[in-house]
């Protein structure tokens, strides 16, 4: 049965140019700029210094506050510098610069061959933590925290997010096709860790090959493949749970509050690699695509690879670029330069041609109500944008559910007045956060 969500939009999926392309291996870059800030929260702290020799998979940064994730060297070589370099999400951020020695030599003790079935849940969580695994769907939430819910939250269902609803991106799709066994293994591992009996894999129905392959692989296991309508933002965590279990995560709560955990396909592959082979998260599948890219590809890229290397691998550009986006075009981050690097959350890099960039003038809201019809969180996006424009950020929060917005961008996508509603909403959220901080520090 096809599962649907209410609201949402149907942007052109643009996946044709890469969905049949096998995951290629990127030639080893000469220099890697590995950011130590790879997850939500405080950046990790480098444990190597300039001049150190490192091996592939060696720990190079560890969590400052115990809640973050460690970072590992993606290749063997020499640390030349620890300095600030462009990060795709955080402007300039501390990076460990590694000059590759061209040997790509693994550190000893890795590449083990052990079975997940003999390991206990606690052992596996420790392995996942030590190997620096984060949510690879884009949010980069540390996986070991997600897998250790508080005692009073009973989790009974695991949902594998394989919707990949963002246009252009095919990295999750290729991962499912080429690493199907690893994905299933990762799912079983996470199910064992959480102690859940039921797993679901949600896939949008524009990926029939992945659906049939996953169905075949799941035979005889407690995992069910669920076909979802192709609609953005089907892959949003809350929408996934709504479509598959028909449960609504209460406002301000987390999936664990309805007994759910949601994991991205890429993260599960990383979990399987970590648990069975002790391989840390040092490389990931990245879709490099867009109208101006000569040969769009899916590529296995090492964390810290500059975007220039990836575009070079694609044969460079044809025509002028307007924007370079890390992530999909609906929620991705526009990049300042091509000097930014691949991080653990980079699911794709999309180029938008100069003539595709739409900088039409923003008009007044004409109250057409389309944003309300498409809002999956059932808010009043137009009202929020107007309140933000007028500086009434507090009213937006108290009376119009500002904090429930997931910033999926459907409202902007359909707005005939081209109001960048999401931008207004982010502005309100930021202003309110500033105000809260000011009150907090003022009262001390």
């Amino acid at each position, binding site marked *: 049965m096809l599962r649907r969500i209410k609201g949402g*939009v149907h*942007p052109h999926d643009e996946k044709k140019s890469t969905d049949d392309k096998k995951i290629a291996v990127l030639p080893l*870059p*000469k220099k890697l*700029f590995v950011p130590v800030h790879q997850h939500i929260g405080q950046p990790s702290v480098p444990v190597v210094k300039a001049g150190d020799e490192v091996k592939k998979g060696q720990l190079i940064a560890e969590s400052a506050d115990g809640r973050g994730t460690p970072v590992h060297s993606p290749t063997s070589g020499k640390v030349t510098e620890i300095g600030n*370099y*462009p990060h795709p999400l955080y402007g300039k951020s501390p990076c460990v610069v590694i000059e590759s020695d061209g040997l790509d030599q693994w550190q000893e003790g890795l590449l083990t061959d052990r079975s997940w079935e003999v390991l206990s849940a606690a052992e596996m969580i420790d392995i996942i933590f030590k190997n620096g695994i984060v949510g690879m769907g884009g949010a980069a939430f540390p996986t070991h925290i997600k897998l250790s819910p508080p005692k009073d939250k009973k989790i009974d269902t695991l949902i594998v997010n394989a919707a990949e609803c963002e*246009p252009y991106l095919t990295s999750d799709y290729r991962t499912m096709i080429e690493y199907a066994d690893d994905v299933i293994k990762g799912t079983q591992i996470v199910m064992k860790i959480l102690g859940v009996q039921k797993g679901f894999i949600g896939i949008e129905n524009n990926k029939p090959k992945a659906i049939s392959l996953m169905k075949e692989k799941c035979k005889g296991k407690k995992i069910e493949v669920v076909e979802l309508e192709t609609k953005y933002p089907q892959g949003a965590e809350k929408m996934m749970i*709504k479509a598959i279990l028909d449960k*609504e995560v*209460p*406002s301000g*709560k987390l999936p664990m509050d309805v007994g759910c955990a949601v994991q991205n396909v890429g993260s599960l592959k990383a979990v399987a690699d970590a648990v069975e082979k002790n391989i840390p998260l040092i490389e990931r599948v990245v879709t490099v695509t867009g109208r101006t890219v000569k040969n769009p590809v899916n590529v296995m890229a090492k964390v810290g690879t*500059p975007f220039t*290397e990836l*575009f*070079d691998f694609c044969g*460079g*550009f044809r025509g002028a670029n*307007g*924007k*370079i*986006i890390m992530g999909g*075009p609906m929620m*991705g*981050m*526009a*990049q*300042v*330069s*091509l*000097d930014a690097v691949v991080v653990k959350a980079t699911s794709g890099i*999309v180029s*938008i041609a100069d003539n595709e*960039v*739409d*900088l*039409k003038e923003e*008009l*007044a809201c*004409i*109250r057409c*109500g389309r944003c*309300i019809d498409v*809002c*999956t969180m*059932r*808010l*009043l996006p137009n009202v929020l944008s107007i309140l933000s424009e007028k500086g009434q950020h507090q009213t937006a929060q108290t*009376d119009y*559910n500002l904090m429930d917005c997931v*910033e999926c961008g459907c409202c*902007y*996508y359909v*707005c*005939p*007045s*081209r109001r*960048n509603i*999401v931008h207004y909403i982010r502005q309100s959220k930021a202003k309110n956060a500033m105000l809260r901080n000011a009150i907090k520090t003022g009262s001390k």
Partner: protein
Amino acid sequence: METKETTANIQKPEKLVITSSPHVHNTESVTKIMWIVNLTLLPAAIFSVINFGLPALITMLLCIAGSAACEAAIQYWRKVKVTVSDGSAVLTGLLLAMCLPAGIAWYVPVIASVAAIGIAKHTMGGLGHNVFNPAHIGRAFVMASYPVAMTTWAVSRIGNSADFAGAMGKVADFDVVTGATPLGILKQQGYQALVDSFGGQSAMYKALFIGNTGGSLGETSAILLILGGLVLVIKKYIKWQVPVVMIGTVALFTWIFGGKVDGKLVYFTGDPVLHILSGGLIIGAFFMATDMVTTPLTTQGQVLFAFGCGLITVLIRLYGGYPEGVCYSILLMNALTPLIDRYIFPKKFGSLPEPVTRS
């Protein structure tokens, strides 16, 4: 910014555009919506020129030119960007013309246009901020100022025989023969007189459906207006619920309360078909009650709005002083729109069933 040593030798873009996400948009825009609505009104507008001749065309051009010129003048004066090309002023002018009788004195459309654009739209802040439907404000304004001129209706030239060729031959004829509208006859002389004036009930329905009756420019051809409205529904520019509920409400209540035998009310004997096809109901339901700016935001709110419009229309038609009430019903409901929006809105995702604690 430091440049990195890299083996890559691609041409780096000199400048990149940085905006907040999302980075893609569908193809809709306000301008596109406005011009398409204009286009869907065009068949009915052309028909009215055939039906009433050149005077209709002159009224129409006066309204459109008046509205556009007024908008341009105000925006020039306010030193803001002149947005006549977005089609919204043209649409207001065209809708306004559809509410006026053909051959009315030249200054009436001009005054109505100034009232519509100058008072109803720009004193409120321009497109998107007006509370009342500008075209209807324009009409109401001249209705109050020139009641005689506004109720001197041109008579159809096509006539009962649907003689298009004859009407086409007379298009350039400036003389306008005036007479009463079907709803006017109904109000003053009763139902039987109205049916007799058409020579039978089926002839009356046919005449009303095709549009060869007297009336304002846009309240004659039901079929062309419905076709235009259907295009808007298919393009999802309007919601089908609004015209259906508004027309349905009028049909229901006129059927229940509209029938009179020897001057006494007899329930369930009214003629809903007559009430649907005559007057400004069709154009009101498809083009005015669906105006985005002046109607509620949510579908549920719009349905309530449409029901209110239908109800007030029936009250005015059956019990009020005017034969027709669509214009005033929509204006009255426009006034209620902010109130409807305050009470009807979607319940947010993941709402908890706990009591609201709003201080």
